[in-house]
């Protein structure tokens, strides 16, 4: 990249009229060279065809604000996207104390599974608790959704005196089985479940804790 020659003192009040044409041409060259770093520009901006001399932004012209973590709460105006160089992550700088994290380098990438562009679904995981009937088959329905296909579901019992399993899984829930193997009357049993699958964007869940 060549440096921009920029002389704000030319033409001077004592410039000869015969020199002004040189100075104006020099100014145009400098402007074109400077703008062409980020925009398609003709002349010294290297543009030569109608498609690369329009003033449109070039590929790669998007550049985030860049600073350490402290800049999340100061240093850039509202609306900037900050690249936090301490913990590599992107943040939207909003009004005071409303800076949101947008993305970070440790995001879990499922590597596929949501088809091709335009993408209309996303991966979702969630879970909750359900009270099962003792020694019986119970149906659990997810709140919200449903998943776009059959999700993966895992179950965990609140008691170590039960054998539990999954009989079937649907896009909107699952059917579990439980057998009491303790002595005496069977106590109630609560299971914690975790489900993971793809769902259409807009099909939100209201999974609860845990």
């Amino acid at each position: 990249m060549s440096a921009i020659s920029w002389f704000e003192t030319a033409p001077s009040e004592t410039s000869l009229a015969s020199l002004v044409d040189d100075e104006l041409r020099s100014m145009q060259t400098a402007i074109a060279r400077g703008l062409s770093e980020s925009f398609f520009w003709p002349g010294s901006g290297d543009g030569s065809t109608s498609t690369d001399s329009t003033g449109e932004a070039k590929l790669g012209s998007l550049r985030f604000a860049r600073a350490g973590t402290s800049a999340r709460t100061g240093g850039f105006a509202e609306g900037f996207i900050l690249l936090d160089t301490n913990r590599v992550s992107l943040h939207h700088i909003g009004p005071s104390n409303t800076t949101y994290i947008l993305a970070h380098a440790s995001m879990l990438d499922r590597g596929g599974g949501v088809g091709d562009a335009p993408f209309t679904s996303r991966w979702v995981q969630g879970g909750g608790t359900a009270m099962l009937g003792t020694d019986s088959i119970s149906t659990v329905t997810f709140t919200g959704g449903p998943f776009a296909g059959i999700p993966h579901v895992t179950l965990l019992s609140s008691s170590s005196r039960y054998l539990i399993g999954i009989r079937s899984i649907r896009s909107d829930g699952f059917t579990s089985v439980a057998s009491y193997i303790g002595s005496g009357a069977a106590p109630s049993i609560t299971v914690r479940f975790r489900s993971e699958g793809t769902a259409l964007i807009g099909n939100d869940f209201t999974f609860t804790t845990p």
Partner: protein
Amino acid sequence: MTRIIWDENLPSDGSAVGLAPDDLQSLWRNLGQGLRTSLEWSSGDLLEGKVRTFLAGQSSSSNSTAKLWARAFFASDTTRLFVYDSTGTYLAGTPYVIEEGRREVGGTEAVWVSQSSTTLVAAAGAPVSLTIPFPTAYANILGETPRVMQTISHRSMTIGLSTITRGGFTSIFSYFGPGSQSAFTIHWASVGRMTGAI
């Protein structure tokens, strides 16, 4: 989009002084036309949506110079957005990210974090419960607790989950095999929110 008329040969050495106003007006006009394409030319602000990421196949991604830091690269073949920094190239977005289904309220700088490990339970004393701490405690956001799943290595035992807190969880187990209880391993995984992780 109109091509900018940009003649760096004008005014020429032979231009009459009287042509200078026309030449200058032309320069202003064409400069403004070009700049208005991407900038709000009353203030110089960038127009919305006027900057672009790099765009190419992922193998073309290259973070070679300081000039590229804080710029973004969209891999057209893998639909992933990367950001360049001085220490490397990092994932910034993808359709394949998994999303937590719990309502996202509060904790604006919190991220969902998964922690998993194995815990060996000794045979001595034939314990029936064990509290396992998380390597890092989860955040106190709206009183929520993390999600925990666990599996046991022993085929003659059953396992349950008694309690979960932000700092750990308590497993309970029953031995129903012959002889005495032996050592076993609990494989566990948890998901919750942290505020200092990112």
